[in-house]
């Protein structure tokens, strides 16, 4: 065994989980990032709170405008279409290119978003798609727009006593087109650059996102006339990173017919 010692709890409902979130406890929602971090002793929490068996975090629901996914929905469930897709294929495309199948079978959308690794896919893809994160703490539930959820490098709007419960995602219209491009040195590796673009004329969306930066993903609210080279130049000091991000954005915009 490699991790430092910790206690482990497996609450069966949200109030029980919330009562455990103190003294630097870490939430385990799939463990595909936390597992390696524990093994490498990058984190040494006194307590790991495994929220995967809380039914509320594993369900999904749908209405005419939105799809709500429990935070512990696995990447593989999204990849396989076992949950409704609000995004006309964007989410299935993103999910199926995260790491490897054995990782996608356990890794979860909420865990990945809350971990907020800049090179992970969901922080960028969900900021692009739009919707809200549903958060619960002992005082009650609240919502925060997905483009404001990740606030920086491994940083989110979650406070220490918050649990990310679900994601309510906007459904795209039939006329929507999306693009998503990432540069990885090897299939399944963390990307060096991410870009996404979304054109939904019926909803007036012409958004783009640049991710795998050194902080939060950068959302371009109206990408119709944006200059990828200029956008990347504002975000990346290093010429190599600048070029990768500019090309990723150009390709994503072209796929979405926004260029």
């Amino acid at each position, binding site marked *: *065994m*490699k991790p430092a010692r910790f206690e*482990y709890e*497996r609450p069966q409902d949200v109030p029980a989980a919330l009562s455990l979130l103190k003294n630097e406890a870490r939430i385990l929602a799939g463990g595909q990032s936390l597992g*390696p971090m524990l093994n490498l002793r990058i984190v040494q929490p006194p307590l790991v709170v495994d929220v995967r*068996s809380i039914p509320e975090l594993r369900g999904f629901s749908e209405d005419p405008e939105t799809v709500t996914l429990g935070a512990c929905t696995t990447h*593989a469930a999204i990849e396989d279409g076992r949950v409704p897709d609000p995004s006309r294929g964007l989410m299935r495309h993103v999910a199926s290119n995260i790491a*490897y*199948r054995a990782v996608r079978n356990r890794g979860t959308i909420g865990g990945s978003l809350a971990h907020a690794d800049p090179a992970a896919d969901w922080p960028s893809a969900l900021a692009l798609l739009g919707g809200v994160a549903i958060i619960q703490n002992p005082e009650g539930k609240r919502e925060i727009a997905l483009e404001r959820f990740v606030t920086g490098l491994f940083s989110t709007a979650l406070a220490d006593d918050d649990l990310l419960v679900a994601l309510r995602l906007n459904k795209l219209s039939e006329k929507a087109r999306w693009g998503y491009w990432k540069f990885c040195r090897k299939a399944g590796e963390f990307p060096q650059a991410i870009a996404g673009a979304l054109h939904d004329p019926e909803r007036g969306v012409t958004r783009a996102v640049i991710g795998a930066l050194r902080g939060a993903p950068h959302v371009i609210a109206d990408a119709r006339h944006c200059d990828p080279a200029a956008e990347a130049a504002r975000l990346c000091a290093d010429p190599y990173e600048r070029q990768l991000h500019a090309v990723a954005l150009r390709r994503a915009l072209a796929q979405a017919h926004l260029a």
Partner: protein
Amino acid sequence: MTRTRRVAFTVNGRPVQAELEPRTSLADFVRESERLTGTNLGCEHGVCGACTLEIDGAPARSCITLAAACEGAHVRTIEAFDDDPVMEKLREAFSAEHALQCGYCTPGMLMTARDIVLRLPGADEARIRLELSGNLCRCTGYMGIVRAIQRVLKAP
């Protein structure tokens, strides 16, 4: 000193109950407590795929899965697949195509290969290579492994 935790799940169809430290990985548990040493440990941070086994019917990394998190789960290691028809074909194909040399990656490769055969029956070479990208082999390279999976996919 942290408390130990009582866990109950099945390993290769057999119920097991254990009192273990929460930090015990599933890989260490099956190797050291269950003496099922077919599961190999490589990188121990989820990258190399050597420790891939099956949890509730789906491949998973046992080095980054806590044994305590397997409460109620059905775990199957490479030892459980002796009589599995797909694995039987894969073993023959791995041998015929020289898809292994030292054998260290092989249990994980077979787990992933079986998943490819069952989940993606129409996979072409490019797709097989993509799906295999989470399993590293440092001896033979991947040509033999890819050919072995193709051989099983083509077999009637």
